[in-house]
C-alpha cells in the first residue's frame, strides 16, 4: 500500500525525516518496501491560461491554443483532447526542461509554429500515466512558476502491511502507529458540515446481522459535481488513485484516510428510498459498476433498496444506482461487513477492490459514523461553486450487534518469560497504552487488557507480548550465543541424508548433474510410462502440470530431450525426489523417494580412440559401483519388460532381497515419439534399499599370500543361457580352490550358430595355505568343465 508523507503529516507532528519514518515503521512491523520521492524534475514550467483554441489546419487531432503566459500571449500546438479555452494549464516555455532532460524548443508542427508545450502530469513526472493535459485551478495567476503553484514535492512509502493489520491500511492508521512511537497526539481531521432538519432518514433494515454488524446511511442534498481541488488530486495521485470528480474522489479519499470504505448511492435511483441488507438469493443477478452481470449465491451479502440489489456488500456498487455527473442527492453508506463474507464473495467473483481488501481484514466498527461524517464534510466543502449542500440531520445507524472486543488477561512476567529479557511492568504498560490498549490492574500485574476497536488481531497474551516487543523494539532483546546441548541418541534422519549425499556425490564424480524437476507432469506424458492412473491436481497451472509423478523417468527423459535439442553431445542427469503412488481417492499417497538417472551420448570420448556410445553395460557398471560405494553387495539383474523400455534391454534390479527398481534402454519407439534423436539409458530406483540403513562396517578377510593360478575356458552355449546362470551354477558347485570367475569375452557369429554364443571365462584358483600344484588345478578345472558341459550342454571351444 502506498502512503504519502504529505498526507501523513496532516495527522501527526513528528520532525523525523522520510528515511527515519521509513525505518521506524519497518521496525514496528509496518515494513517499508520502498521510498519514492516526488520532486519537481523540471524547470521553466509556468501557469498559463488558454485564451482561445482553433483547429490546426494541417492535422485533425491537433489544435492551436493561444496561451497567456504571464508576459506574452503565444501560440502553442496541442494534441490533448481536453485542451479548451478558459483552461488554466502548465505551460513549458522555450528553454524549459522536462523530466528526462527533454528541452523545449521552438518547433514547426505540421507547418504551424509552436512556441512551447502544454504539459500532462506524466510529462511533468507527477504521475505514472495521465490523460490529457494537466488542468490547474482557475485562480492561479498566469506566469507563476509551477513548482510554486503546485504542492509537488512528496515522499511515497510502499508499505507491506501484513494480513493481521487491516487497521494500518489507511493514512490515519499509519499515523496512529507513528504518533504512538513518537508519543505525540493524533490529530483527527475536520468532520463538521451544515445540516438540515428537513427530510427523513432513509430506513435501514439489516436482515443478516451475522454478516453486517453495522450500517450507517446518511443523506446529503444539493451537491454539485466538480473536479476535486488540486491538493486532493495530488494526494490521491501520490497513492496511485486517479482523480475523477469531487464525489468519487471524496469516497476514495476517506477510504485511504480512515480505512473505511464508503459507497455513494444516487438517491434518485433508490426505490423507497430504503436500504435492506440481506443474504443474496441463489441465482439472483445484478450488474456491478464495471458493467458485468454477476450471478449471486447464498454466500453473498447484498445491499438492496426497496426493490432490488443496488450493491454487492463490501465489494462493488451496482450500476443501477451509481453517482453520475448530474447527481445532487446522495445516500452515503458506511458499514461493517463480516470479513469472511467479503473475502468469499470477492474471491469467487475474482473482484478485488480497495474496499474488499479492507473489509476482509476488518475495519474499525467504532468509527463507522465518524468516517461518514468526514466524507460529508468534504462533500459539502468541495461541492461545485454555487451549490450549498446540506446533510439531513436524522440518519440511520443500524447496529444489530456489537463486534466483540476481547479483554485479555495479561501478566507482565509472561512477557519476560517469552522474550528472555526483563521488561519493567511500567514500560510494558506504557507500550500497551500508547498503542491504544486499555490496561486495568495493579502496577505489577496481572492486568486485564482491553483491545482497541481498530485491532481485531489481538486475543491472546502472546499477542500483547508482541505489541510490547514491537513497541520497545526487537533490538532490545539480547542475542546470546546459541545454546547447544549434546544430542542423546543418533540423528537417524541426518545419517540417512548423508548417505543420500554420498550417492549424489558419487554420481557427480561420474559426470552426472543433479536435476530438479516439478513433481507434476502432463497426463499424456505420464501415460507413456505408466498405465495406472496418477493422482491429479484439481487446479493445475497448466495441463502439462496436472498429474503427480509416479516415476522420475518421464521428466528426466524430457530433460534429456531438452538438452539434446539444445546441442548437448551427451546427457548425464540424475534426480533424487519423491514419486506419489495412489492408495485410493482422498487418501494420502505413498511417497517413495527415488533415484532416477538418464544417460545418452558418449560414455567416453577422447581424441585418441574417439567416442564410444553409452550402452546398457555402462549403466549397469555404474549401478554396481554405486552399490559398492554405499557399502552394499552387488545387485542382481533379471531380464524384464516395461512398456517404456526396450524389451530386450531391460532388467529389474534386486538388492539384498529387496526390489531396487529397473534399468534399461528407453524404448526406441518412445524415443522416436518424444523426438529424442539418441539412444537413452534410464534407471528408476528406490532409494531406501540403497541408503535406508547404515552399511555394516567392512570385515577384514585375509586375502591369501599364496600365488593364484588362472585358467581360461570358452564355452559354446545356447543363447538362451544367461551369464548369470552359468556363474551362479559355478558358485553352487562350491568347488575347492575357486577364488573367482570372471567373464572376459563374449563371442557371437563366425562359426557359431545363430542361436549360440561363446562365453569366455577366466577362473582363478587359489589355496589359502599353500601353493597349488598343476595337478590340483587341473583336477578342479576338469570338474568345473565337466559340470558346465552337463548343466548347459556347453561345448568347450
Amino acid at each position, binding site marked *: 500500500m502506498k502512503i504519502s508523507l504529505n498526507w501523513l503529516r496532516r495527522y501527526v507532528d513528528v520532525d523525523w525525516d522520510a528515511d527515519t519514518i521509513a525505518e521506524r515503521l519497518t521496525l514496528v512491523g509496518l515494513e517499508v518496501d520502498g521510498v519514492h520521492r516526488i520532486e519537481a524534475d523540471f524547470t521553466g514550467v509556468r501557469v498559463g491560461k488558454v485564451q482561445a483554441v482553433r483547429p490546426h489546419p494541417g492535422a485533425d487531432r491537433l489544435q492551436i491554443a493561444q496561451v497567456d503566459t504571464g508576459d506574452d500571449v503565444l501560440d502553442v500546438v496541442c494534441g490533448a483532447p481536453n485542451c479548451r479555452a478558459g483552461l488554466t494549464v502548465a505551460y513549458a516555455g522555450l528553454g524549459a526542461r522536462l523530466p528526462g532532460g527533454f528541452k523545449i524548443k521552438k518547433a514547426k508542427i505540421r507547418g504551424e509554429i509552436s512556441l512551447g508545450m502544454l504539459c500532462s502530469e506524466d510529462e511533468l513526472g507527477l504521475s505514472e500515466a495521465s490523460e490529457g493535459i494537466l488542468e490547474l485551478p482557475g485562480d492561479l495567476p498566469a506566469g507563476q512558476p509551477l513548482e510554486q503553484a503546485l504542492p509537488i514535492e512528496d515522499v511515497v512509502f510502499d508499505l507491506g502491511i501484513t494480513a493481521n493489520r487491516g487497521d494500518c491500511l489507511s493514512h490515519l492508521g499509519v499515523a496512529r502507529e507513528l504518533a504512538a512511537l513518537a508519543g505525540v497526539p493524533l490529530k483527527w481531521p475536520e468532520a463538521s458540515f451544515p445540516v438540515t432538519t428537513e427530510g427523513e432518514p432513509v430506513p435501514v433494515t439489516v436482515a443478516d446481522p451475522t454478516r453486517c454488524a453495522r450500517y450507517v446511511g446518511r443523506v446529503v442534498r444539493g451537491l454539485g459535481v466538480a473536479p476535486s481541488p488540486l491538493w486532493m488530486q495530488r494526494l490521491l495521485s501520490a497513492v496511485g488513485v486517479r482523480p475523477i470528480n469531487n464525489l468519487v474522489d471524496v469516497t476514495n479519499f476517506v477510504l485511504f484516510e480512515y480505512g473505511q470504505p464508503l459507497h455513494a448511492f444516487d438517491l434518485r435511483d433508490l426505490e423507497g428510498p430504503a436500504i435492506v441488507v440481506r443474504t443474496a438469493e441463489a441465482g439472483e443477478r445484478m450488474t456491478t459498476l464495471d458493467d458485468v452481470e454477476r450471478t449471486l449465491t447464498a454466500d453473498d451479502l447484498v445491499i438492496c433498496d426497496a426493490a432490488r440489489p443496488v450493491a454487492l456488500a463490501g465489494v462493488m456498487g451496482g450500476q443501477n444506482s451509481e453517482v453520475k455527473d448530474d447527481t445532487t442527492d446522495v445516500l452515503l453508506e458506511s458499514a461493517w461487513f463480516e*470479513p469472511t463474507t467479503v473475502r468469499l464473495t470477492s474471491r469467487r467473483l475474482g473482484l478485488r477492490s480497495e474496499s474488499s481488501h479492507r473489509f476482509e481484514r476488518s475495519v474499525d466498527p467504532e468509527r463507522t459514523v465518524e468516517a461518514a461524517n468526514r466524507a460529508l464534510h468534504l462533500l459539502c466543502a468541495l461541492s461545485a461553486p454555487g451549490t450549498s449542500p446540506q446533510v439531513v440531520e436524522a440518519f440511520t445507524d443500524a447496529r444489530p450487534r456489537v463486534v466483540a472486543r476481547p479483554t485479555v488477561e495479561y501478566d507482565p512476567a509472561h512477557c519476560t518469560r517469552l522474550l528472555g529479557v526483563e521488561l519493567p511492568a511500567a514500560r510494558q504498560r506504557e507500550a500497551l497504552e500508547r498503542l491504544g490498549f486499555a490496561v486495568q490492574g495493579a502496577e505489577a500485574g496481572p492486568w486485564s487488557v482491553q483491545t482497541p476497536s481498530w485491532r481485531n488481531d489481538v486475543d491472546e497474551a502472546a499477542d500483547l507480548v508482541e505489541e510490547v516487543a514491537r513497541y520497545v523494539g526487537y533490538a532490545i532483546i539480547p542475542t546470546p550465543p546459541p545454546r547447544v546441548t549434546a544430542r542423546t541418541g543418533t540423528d537417524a534422519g541426518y545419517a540417512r541424508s548423508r548417505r543420500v549425499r554420498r550417492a549424489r556425490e558419487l554420481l*557427480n564424480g561420474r559426470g552426472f548433474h543433479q536435476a530438479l524437476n516439478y513433481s507434476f507432469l502432463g497426463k499424456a506424458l505420464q501415460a507413456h510410462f505408466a498405465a495406472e492412473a496418477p493422482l491429479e491436481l484439481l487446479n493445475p497451472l497448466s495441463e502439462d502440470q496436472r498429474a503427480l509423478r509416479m516415476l522420475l523417468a518421464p521428466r528426466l527423459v524430457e530433460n534429456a530431450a*531438452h538438452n539434446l535439442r539444445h546441442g548437448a553431445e551427451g546427457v548425464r542427469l540424475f534426480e533424487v525426489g519423491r514419486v506419489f503412488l495412489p492408495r485410493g481417492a*482422498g487418501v494420502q499417497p505413498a511417497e517413495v523417494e527415488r533415484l532416477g538417472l538418464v544417460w545418452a551420448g558418449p560414455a567416453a570420448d577422447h581424441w585418441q580412440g574417439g567416442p564410444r556410445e553409452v550402452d546398457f553395460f555402462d549403466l549397469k557398471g555404474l549401478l554396481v559401483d554405486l552399490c559398492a560405494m554405499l557399502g552394499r553387495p552387488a545387485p542382481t539383474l533379471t531380464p524384464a519388460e516395461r512398456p517404456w523400455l526396450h524389451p530386450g534391454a531391460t532388467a529389474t534390479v534386486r538388492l539384498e532381497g529387496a526390489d531396487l527398481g529397473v534399468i534399461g534402454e528407453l524404448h526406441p519407439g518412445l524415443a522416436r515419439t518424444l523426438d529424442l534423436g539418441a539412444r537413452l539409458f534410464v534407471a528408476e530406483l528406490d532409494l531406501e534399499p540403497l541408503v535406508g540403513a547404515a552399511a555394516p562396517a567392512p570385515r577384514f578377510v585375509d586375502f591369501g599370500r599364496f600365488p593364484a593360478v588362472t585358467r581360461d575356458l570358452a564355452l559354446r552355449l545356447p543363447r538362451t543361457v544367461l551369464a548369470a546362470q552359468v556363474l551362479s551354477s559355478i558358485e553352487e558347485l562350491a568347488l575347492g580352490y575357486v577364488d573367482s570367475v570372471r567373464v572376459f569375452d563374449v563371442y557371437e557369429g563366425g562359426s557359431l550358430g545363430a542361436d549360440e554364443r561363446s562365453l569366455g571365462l577366466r577362473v582363478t584358483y587359489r589355496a589359502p595355505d599353500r601353493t597349488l600344484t598343476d595337478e590340483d588345478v587341473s583336477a578342479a578345472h576338469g570338474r568345473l568343465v565337466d559340470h558346465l558341459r552337463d548343466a548347459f550342454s556347453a561345448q568347450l571351444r
Partner: protein
Amino acid sequence: MSDALAALRARLDDLREQARSVAAGVDRDADLNEGKARFLGRKGAFGPVMRELGSLDRAQRPAAGALINEAKQAIEAVFAEARARIEQKALDAALEAGRIDVTLPGRRSAPGATHPVQAVLDELVDLLVELGFALADGPEVETEHYNFDQLNMPASHPARDMQDTFYLQGDLLLRTQTSPVQIRAMEDTKPPVRIIAPGKVFRCDADVTHSPTFHQIEGLWVDTDVTMADLKGVLSYFLRRLFGADRGVRFRPSFFPFTEPSVEVDVEFGDGWMEVLGAGMVHPRVLRNVGFDPTAVQGFAFGLGVDRLAMVRYGITDIRYLFENDQRFLTQFARGR
C-alpha cells in the same frame, strides 16, 4: 721375452684391435652378440690361441696364460662398452619415440554438479545440525488439517490467501510450506523438540520470481525455557555463518498465523537489507493444538526459502533456470564447494 711370447702378444694385440673395430661397428644387439662370439665364443678366435698355448715351453706358459687372460678381459670390456652404448641408444630412441604433446586434452570424466539449490540446502542442513537440530520429515501431499488448521489458519483465515494452494481430491493438497512438519514432530515427540525439516513446497504461482515448486527449510525448538532471545541468538549465529561474521542481522515484527510474536529477519546486503527468513515464537494455539501446555512449554520456529538464497548466492537471474535442468546451467555448479 722369447720370440714365441712376443709373437703371441702381437697376435693378441691384433685380436684386441680387431675386436675393437668389430665392436665399434655394431649397433644392434644381435650383431654385437655375433661379433662377440667371433672372439670369445666356443669357436671364436681364442680357440686356436689356446691350442697354441700347449706348444709353448712349460716355463712360458704362465706368462702366456696371463697375456691371454688380459686380452680376453680387454675384449670383454670392449663388448660390454659396446652393449652399454647400444642400450643407451635404444633407450634414447625409445624416449624420443615416447615424446608426446602434453598439452593435448586428457581423458576426462568431467565432474557433474550438485544442483545449486541442493548445494545451499546441504550447507544449511549441516549448519543447523551442528547447532543441535535433528532432521525431520513429512509428506509433500498433506491434509488441510496439517497444512493449515493445526497451524492456526482456519478456513476463514485471510492468511490462507497468502498462499495459493494446489488442491487434490478430498482434503488433500500439496503442502504450501514445510511448517506441517512442525506439527507432526510435536505430535510424535514430547518436548524438548528440536528439529529441522528441509523439503519441497508448492504454490500455484509462476513467473520470473515465483516457481510452483520451491524449497524451504523449517526449524523448530520447543522446550520449557526457549525464549525469543534464543531465537535471536540461534538465527544470528546461523545467518552470520552463512553470510559472513560481520554481516548485520536485523529482526523486525511481522505476521505469521502460527507464531506470536512473529519476526522477519533481514541480513545486511549491499546498501540495504535482504529479507531471508520468517520466524517467531510458536503460537500458543499451535501448542495447544498438539496437546502441549503453552504455560509450561514454549519455543520458536523459523522457515527459510532456499531457492531465492541460491539465486542470490550464485547470481542466478531467473528462477525458471532452476527447474529446466539445462546442462549448460548445471555444469556451472560442478566446481568444488
